[in-house]
């Protein structure tokens, strides 16, 4: 019986030399009896295992050869083949998120120009009038013009005006006499403030209105500004505002409506009263017999004539308020405003907005996906640890 010499010298603790000798012996690098004994032991251990069954080896080899044949490179579908690539889903998700961000950014941003100010409610609400009213808005102003005309008022010239509000402006109540007002702020380059103010004036005149006041301040360099108070026919207010918006980008716009029906009715009643008084005085004068009565009546008629003129003037004023709209136009010009109209700036603005929305979406997605991924990773780790524990336990129980 040959005694198998085992290396190691009986030492109970492994060291690097021992392991190195073992490695060298098993890889064929080691020489000598010790290395030969290691190799012999390995050969004996390996020889203990019976050989693979030829039939099983053949079948397994055939299966692997079949897999090899099946794994020849295939041309993926040109359109959807990339979806099967394991590295592409992340890129597809990123592209989808970006497209979603762009869509949200586009939908969220206004199509052009700055957001408009909220339109305030009418200064005076409908009050003090009872009973059925004419169905159309123009009826109120038309009635005022008709009454003024019948009473010889100069407001007849403005009687055809309508106080129909601009689309999106304050709604006019039917049968009411209302006064419209608006303010608009236009943004222009500093050098174009004067030109824009001139165009605003020409626009007011062309629409049948006029410039009540104008103040243009031009500073080089610096911020320039022009303030114009326009008086426009109420019927052309909406069109005028739209035309003003085409002169320069609109920074702000507001419209207001004030109900002056009571004032109008009071002025009209006053004119009616003094007119009736005149008729009465004239009838009394025709019946007067004494010189004293005639002189007294003529004096009162003279006074009444002044009252009638005063009443007509008041009614005319009120009618003008109803038929005209006051528009405050502010033209601002500064560097920021000037650059706002540039395509490059708008492009950068939109790009920044898209990036911000993208980041927000990614943040929200991360807030959802990261905890989920951590949970799944923890579960996977726990499963692996449990599986490993079970496998090691199988070794211990043998």
């Amino acid at each position, binding site marked *: *019986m*040959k*005694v*198998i010499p*085992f290396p*190691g010298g009986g030492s*109970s*603790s*492994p060291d690097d030399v*021992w*392991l190195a000798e*073992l*490695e060298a012996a*098993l*890889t*064929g690098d080691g020489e000598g009896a010790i290395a030969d004994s290691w*190799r012999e*032991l*390995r*050969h*004996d*251990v*390996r*020889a*203990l*295992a*019976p*050989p*693979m*069954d*030829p039939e*099983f*080896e053949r079948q*397994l*080899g055939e*299966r*692997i*050869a079949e*897999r*090899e044949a099946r*794994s*020849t490179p295939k041309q993926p579908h040109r359109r959807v083949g990339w979806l099967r690539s*394991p590295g592409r889903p992340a890129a597809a998700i990123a592209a989808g998120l970006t497209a979603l961000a762009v869509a949200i950014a586009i939908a969220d941003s206004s199509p052009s120009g700055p957001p408009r100010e909220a339109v305030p409610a009418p200064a005076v609400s409908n009050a003090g009038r009872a009973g059925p009213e004419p169905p159309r808005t123009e009826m109120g102003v038309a009635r005022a013009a008709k009454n003024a005309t019948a009473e010889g008022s100069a407001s007849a010239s403005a009687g055809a005006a309508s106080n129909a509000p601009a689309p999106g402006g304050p709604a006019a109540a039917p049968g009411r006499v209302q006064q419209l007002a608006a303010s608009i702020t236009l943004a222009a380059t500093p050098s174009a403030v004067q030109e824009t103010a001139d165009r605003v004036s020409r626009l007011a005149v062309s629409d049948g209105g006029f410039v009540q006041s104008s103040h243009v301040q031009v500073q080089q360099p610096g911020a320039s500004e022009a303030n114009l108070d326009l008086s426009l026919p109420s019927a052309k207010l909406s069109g005028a505002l739209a035309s003003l918006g085409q002169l320069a980008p609109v920074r702000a716009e507001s419209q207001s409506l004030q109900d002056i029906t009571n004032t109008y009715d009071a002025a009209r009643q006053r004119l009616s009263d003094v007119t009736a008084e005149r008729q009465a005085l004239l009838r009394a004068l025709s019946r007067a017999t004494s010189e004293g009565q005639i002189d007294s009546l003529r004096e009162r008629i003279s006074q009444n004539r002044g009252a009638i003129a005063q009443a007509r003037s008041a009614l005319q004023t009120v009618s003008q308020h109803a038929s005209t709209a006051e528009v405050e136009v502010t033209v601002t010009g500064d560097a920021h405003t000037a650059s706002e109209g540039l395509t490059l700036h708008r492009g950068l603005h939109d790009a920044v907005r898209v990036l911000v929305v993208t980041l927000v979406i990614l943040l929200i997605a991360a807030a959802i996906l990261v905890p989920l991924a951590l949970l799944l990773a923890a579960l996977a780790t726990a499963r692996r640890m449990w599986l*490993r524990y*079970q*496998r*090691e*336990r*199988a*070794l*211990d129980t*043998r």
Partner: protein
Amino acid sequence: MSRPGPSSDEHAPRAVAAAAAPGALSAEVFAALFRECGADVHGYAISLLGDRSAAEDVTALAFERLYRSRSRLDHRRGTPRAWLFAIARNAALDELRRRRRQPRYELEDELAADRDCLEALEHVERRATVRAALAALPLREREVVLLKFHGQLSNSELARALGISESNAGTRLHRALTRLREGCLQAERQEEIA
């Protein structure tokens, strides 16, 4: 004992590992890996499980799992051979856990056949001694010896397959081989006394 298959060269088991390109495991390399390591995996499995059918199942399952995970092969974590034996180890332990069966050796027939050859008698006796000593080892230590000799893994690869540190793997390997040596010496003494 003649060993079929391509793994007879015990000193050059890393040809496939060296030829394997970084990254994915190609079908050609996979087929070569089977030709080189198939018998070793089967030998490891049958030595650990002691059941031929179970060893064949484990061998087939190991190659199946390796094929499925070939795209995730990371050469920084070891050679394809080491990876294959790590998979085979897991499959063998799963088999052990599932079948709850005490491993046994089916070497009696082969040894009996070899005894007919007088020239191989010395080898047969020595292998019988080794077999007895190996069978006497605890399963955990026997597994280390089998992985080391059948898998022909380096200590670092052995550590990865076992899921422990390299120093711990060295300690475990040293302890297992020491017990194997002691078992062989004890068996030889008993035979001499007998």
